[in-house]
């Protein structure tokens, strides 16, 4: 085994499981998660020479996220179905790629309890900050690096995500939106 490969195995592969956890919450089907992870690891390996003394985990997560985004873009180009309701986008926070595909999503999350289902229904930009903060325990600065936005944006997305999840959670259990307490 050559030197770069050995160094890559020692420094990057320990984060493989975490990267896979992250990928699962970005993509829709298990097969897609597998492909995204494999592509990300290969890209990481090609770019590995560029990495010196920086944060390997955030770096790998950023690559996973990019692989996911390019896969999505590719799928959309292939389908190229025009959006029927373009005026919806004028709404300040349009829920980009938020609605999961009904069948695969239901099948995948069938065995999960409510919170998992509510998470899956969140807009992607909210879902990813929640996973990075609450599950992967990255700091704001690291999340900013992974999602390629300023720290202020990370903070506001995180706040929106927590508020949304709480709101949907309460709706689920109270049957209706809670009145202002």
């Amino acid at each position, binding site marked *: 085994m050559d030197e770069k490969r050995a160094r890559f195995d020692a420094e990057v592969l320990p984060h493989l499981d975490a990267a896979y956890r992250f990928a699962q919450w970005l993509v829709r089907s298990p097969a897609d998660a597998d492909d995204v992870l494999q592509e990300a690891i290969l890209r990481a390996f090609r770019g590995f020479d560029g990495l010196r003394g920086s944060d390997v985990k955030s770096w790998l997560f*950023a690559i996973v996220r990019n692989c996911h985004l390019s896969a999505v873009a590719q799928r959309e180009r292939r389908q190229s179905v025009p959006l029927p309701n373009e005026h919806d986008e004028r709404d300040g926070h349009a829920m980009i790629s938020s609605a999961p595909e009904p069948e695969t999503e239901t099948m995948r999350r069938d065995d999960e309890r409510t919170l998992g289902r509510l998470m899956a229904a969140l807009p992607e930009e909210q879902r990813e900050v929640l996973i990075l903060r609450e599950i992967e325990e990255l700091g704001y600065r690291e999340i900013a690096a992974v999602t390629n936005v300023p720290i202020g944006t990370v903070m506001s997305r995180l706040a929106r995500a927590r508020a949304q999840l709480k709101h949907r959670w309460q709706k689920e259990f109270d049957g209706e939106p809670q009145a202002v307490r």
Partner: protein
Amino acid sequence: MSPRLCAETSTRLPVYFDGELDALAAAELERHLAGCAECRAGLEELRELRAALRRELKFRPTPPELKTRISAALDRESADAHGADAQTAGGPGAGRVLPITPRPTARGARPFWAGAFAGVGAAALAASLALFLLVPAGVDPLLDDLVNAHVRSLMPAHLIDVESTDRHTVKPWFAGHVDVSPVVADFTDQGYKLIGGRADYFAHQRAAAVIYQHGAHIINVFSWSQEGKRLPSDTTRNGYHLAFWRLGNLDYCAVSDTGWDELLALEKLLKTE
């Protein structure tokens, strides 16, 4: 009094909860918390949400076949890269012994970003550059020893020498296997489950590692006898946080990819044990 009047609940409280307020502002907010029921309730909600997510979100473990597939793809890739490298950069230095520690000026002829352009998207490149600037390369070999020991421990069958959730089993085991007698305690109720102990070798002695599980993360708490050297300050290397403290005649270091607040909370627990 009508609720939702406290501005802190939506501004600094979440930042405090995430462990991102500086010490001064955190102390200020803690004083504020003592007198503000709304913020206390808000903090409780944040805690509940985090606990619920950690408890209920399901993750599939990485399938072994996928790992095999990736490994094979890497083999092909490194075979290709090997050939290309030899042509463009005058040989990759294949004859050298493998150093796991990063070499700051290795392959100096090659600009550090050259490889990144080969395959990584622009955003990832930007991210890696930003991080590169944020995290200075360390010089203390102890840091590398600690990170390497942690990474090694995560490889299959390396994690635990004595598997037990009982401090009264783990602690005596150390007596025969390492040179130190560290603090061992189980904090399952606080979210840090003791899962075992291991002997490691660094700082020129047989050091102890006490292993905790926190959610999806493994935390190694290393301990070794002081050698009169200065204790390194808390730092982050290769995505792992290292928190140092000194207790009795031992130096301790907790290493993990958990968040800082989670790691420091364990340090606090161990210090007061």
